């Protein structure tokens, strides 16, 4: 019987090795898999390469992982924020490497990895500093930049509901990067608010099919929800 439900965040991340590349879902705090990040911090893996849109907010979640000096490199589109002080400090001290990627290019590189695409041409960033040194091509009337996929060892994401096959639904704008990250990683670990019986999720509304998911952990919701 296929059962992807795992007892705890700790059990779900026990095998993460030092040096792993990990995609973390979320856009700011919306969709941030906080319980899994806390478990990753407790687990102790170091020299991580992290893929997220941002570089952490305030002192919790991704910011705490960065603050604990566990991240060697981060790929993101928007590190600098009013409350990104952990990243800012380490970046200025030269203790964390940054690969700045335009947000749409970041999303498409992740999608490409999950879809088996070897590389793609995008018009984004052509002629800018972020395309320096990259291969370009004129196709028709436009200029494009060659970009490569981003693969990951793990994706840790937050979804709303899951069944034991790993079929997922999301809630509001917490979906953001999670579905494409689930596709791009060797091992996708999901924290969900609720686990349900097979068949309880309407097949028409499954957003991430279980084939992209390896492990599911139910975590009590701690975020504030509108009534």
């Amino acid at each position, binding site marked *: 019987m296929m059962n992807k439900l795992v007892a705890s965040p700790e059990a779900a991340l026990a095998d993460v090795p030092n040096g792993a590349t990990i995609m973390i879902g979320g*856009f*700011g*705090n*919306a*969709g941030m898999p906080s319980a899994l990040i806390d478990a990753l911090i407790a687990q102790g893996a170091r020299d991580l390469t992290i893929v997220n*849109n941002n570089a952490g*907010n305030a002192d919790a979640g991704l910011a705490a992982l960065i603050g604990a000096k566990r991240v060697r490199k981060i790929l993101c*589109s*928007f*590190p*600098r*924020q009013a409350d990104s002080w952990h*990243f*800012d400090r380490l*970046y*200025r001290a030269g203790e964390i490497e*940054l690969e*700045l*990627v*335009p*947000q*749409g*290019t*970041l*999303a*498409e590189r*992740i*999608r490409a990895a999950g879809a088996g695409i070897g590389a793609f041409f*995008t*018009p*984004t*960033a*052509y*002629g*800018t*500093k*972020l395309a320096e040194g990259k291969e370009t091509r004129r196709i028709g009337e436009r200029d494009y930049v060659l970009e490569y996929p981003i693969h990951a060892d793990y994706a840790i994401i937050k979804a709303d509901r899951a069944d034991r096959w790993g079929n997922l639904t*999301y*809630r*509001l*704008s*917490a*979906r*953001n*990067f*999670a*579905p*494409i990250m689930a596709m791009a990683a060797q091992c996708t670990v999901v924290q969900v608010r609720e686990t349900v019986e097979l068949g309880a999720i309407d097949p028409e509304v499954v*957003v991430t099919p279980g084939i992209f998911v390896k492990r599911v952990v139910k975590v009590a919701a701690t*975020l*504030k*929800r*509108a*009534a």
Partner: protein
Amino acid sequence: MKKLDHKQIAARVARDIPEGAYVNLGIGLPTLVADQLPKGREIILHSENGVLGLGPKPLPGQEDDDMMNAGKEPATLVTGGCFFHHADSFAMIRGRHLDVAVLGAFQVSVAGDLANWHTGGADAIPAVGGAMDLAVGAKKVIVMMEHLTKKGESKLVERCTYPITGARCVNRVYTDLAVLDVKPDGLHVVETVEGLSFEELQRLSGVPLKRLASAA
């Protein structure tokens, strides 16, 4: 002359956004446009983080941590709105499905180059977000900015001295002094604020401007 305040620039931008448009408002000044959209026009706001039909700020106590705008502020969804993942969100942008992007700017060149993501300072931490995608992807790229820097220098320039976000991508610029169109032969003044002559705008702007036949 009667300089426009930020809200008035936002209202001026909003006036030109047509019924039925799909629009992305960049973070910073452009977010003010949302509250100025003419009542009765159905205009759908897109947010990079996977939202079509972004609504106004929630009432106090109605905030939801799963519902944010691209500036990571609490947001709402209008009736008929929907969610999608990030690759689809940027397919909407890059794939030329979005009618209008309104962006802030440090500088706009006479050729329509946009600089709005990085001051280029050695100590500055760069951040780009979705700006480069919006600059190349939206059918119409509008810049909303103050005409002059705090030091009184023109933000309309011959060539951007800050790193560019996109080349030849800006179609129209709305400032606290004027509305200008970017055309293949340079910047055309569409209108100026009350009490500001073309000649005075020309002097303040420091780059060659052209008069639209219809301009006041």
